[in-house]
């Protein structure tokens, strides 16, 4: 595998191979914590932090990594960083921790992280691996935020509710409520809303990809757009 350049890494993480919309490797946290914008942001930041750190350490230890123990080391590194993030969040974002608390340990089960360690960080130079971790985390966070906004607006008729959990006093003024009595459509606040919303987002991305690839494929009508790189 040759070393990709910066724009390659950005394009892969944010669009072409987006962890939330294409790789679909982090469904558990993506579906569970996307019920409000602030929950999504908290989860996204925690995941990005773990992903960047683990890619960094995995790439750093590349010279000594051994084939037969690499998976054990990845798991150790990821679990270690998740533990650190959990403690830091508990100490400095206590209110948010109370909400996200049970989902933080689940970052360990987010296969994006071990996926990037195995597929990218263990084969690439330090800078590329660190950037890839950050960009993949960003791509995941953006999808979380989109889904979180959608579900919060439709499901609870609010946006940025509880922003003070992340932003302190200043966040109190951020919350938007669409009318005192607006209740929202419950379905979207509940788990089905996560599946429906994610399905819509994936569909929208595919439509855009199709539109973008049209000019090139106009001559060869049968060639299908490259939307199926979902690697399980």
């Amino acid at each position, binding site marked *: 595998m040759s070393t990709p350049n910066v724009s390659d890494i950005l394009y892969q993480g944010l669009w072409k191979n987006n962890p939330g919309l294409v790789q679909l490797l982090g469904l558990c946290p993506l579906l569970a914590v996307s*019920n409000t914008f602030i929950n999504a942001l908290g989860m996204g930041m925690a995941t990005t932090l773990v992903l960047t750190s683990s890619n960094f350490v995995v790439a750093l*230890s590349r010279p*000594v990594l*051994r084939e*037969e*123990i690499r998976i*054990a*080391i990845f798991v*150790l*590194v990821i*679990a*270690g960083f998740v*533990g*650190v993030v959990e*403690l*830091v969040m*508990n*100490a*400095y974002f*206590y209110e948010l921790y*109370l909400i996200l608390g049970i989902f933080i340990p689940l970052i360990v089960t987010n296969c994006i992280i071990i996926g990037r360690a195995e597929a990218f960080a263990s084969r690439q130079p330090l800078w590329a691996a660190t950037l890839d971790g950050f960009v993949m985390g960003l791509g995941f966070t953006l999808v979380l935020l989109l889904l979180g906004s959608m579900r919060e607006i439709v*499901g*609870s008729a609010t946006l940025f509710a509880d922003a003070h959990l992340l932003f302190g006093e200043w966040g109190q003024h951020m919350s938007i409520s669409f009318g005192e009595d607006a*209740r*929202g459509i*419950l379905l979207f*606040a*509940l788990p089905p809303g996560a599946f429906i919303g994610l399905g819509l987002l994936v569909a929208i991305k595919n439509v855009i990809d199709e539109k973008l690839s049209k000019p090139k494929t106009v001559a060869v009508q049968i060639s299908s757009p490259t939307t199926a790189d979902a690697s399980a």
Partner: protein
Amino acid sequence: MPDWLKPGWLLGLFALIFIFLLAFTYEQTRERIAIQEQLRLEAQLKEILVAGSYDNEPATDVLEIEGDKRTVYRARLQGQPVAALFKTVAKDGYSGSINLLVGIKPNGELLGVRALAHRETPGLGDEIDLRRSDWVLDFAGRSLRNPMPDDWAVKKDGGVFDAFTGATITPRAVVGEVKKTLIYFQAHQHELFQ
């Protein structure tokens, strides 16, 4: 070192590094986490207690009730009991346990009730949360004489408490647990403020 031993050493080394990293973070955050937890508890107790009606630190005046899974915080004014605040759990909510804070005055009257933590369905069961509706405020001033014990139930079960439309399970659980706490208080009042 023989070649077959190397992976083991390497794994051990990584484990050691991360043990130190975690231990260090734990040491650095431990104090702050303890403070945060204490602050949250104090804020919760203050929500129910009337400011100025007590002069001790209820959050540190704790009584753990063995075998009953209840914790009692005691508010006093010049040593005299002002309120007993029970942290207790209604186990039969719609989605598992509902953690409640139940404040009771020495005369057996409720000072107030709050849902501290729950996972009830948004829009259905979560009206027990003060951020959602003021349903819990109805408890203040009630006691086992108001209404009489037999009427301590939601309207659907022949009691006096409102339930939410299409969601009776959650309020039933809360009303039941508050009643149990009141009965417990009545039976143990004298030991509670020892």
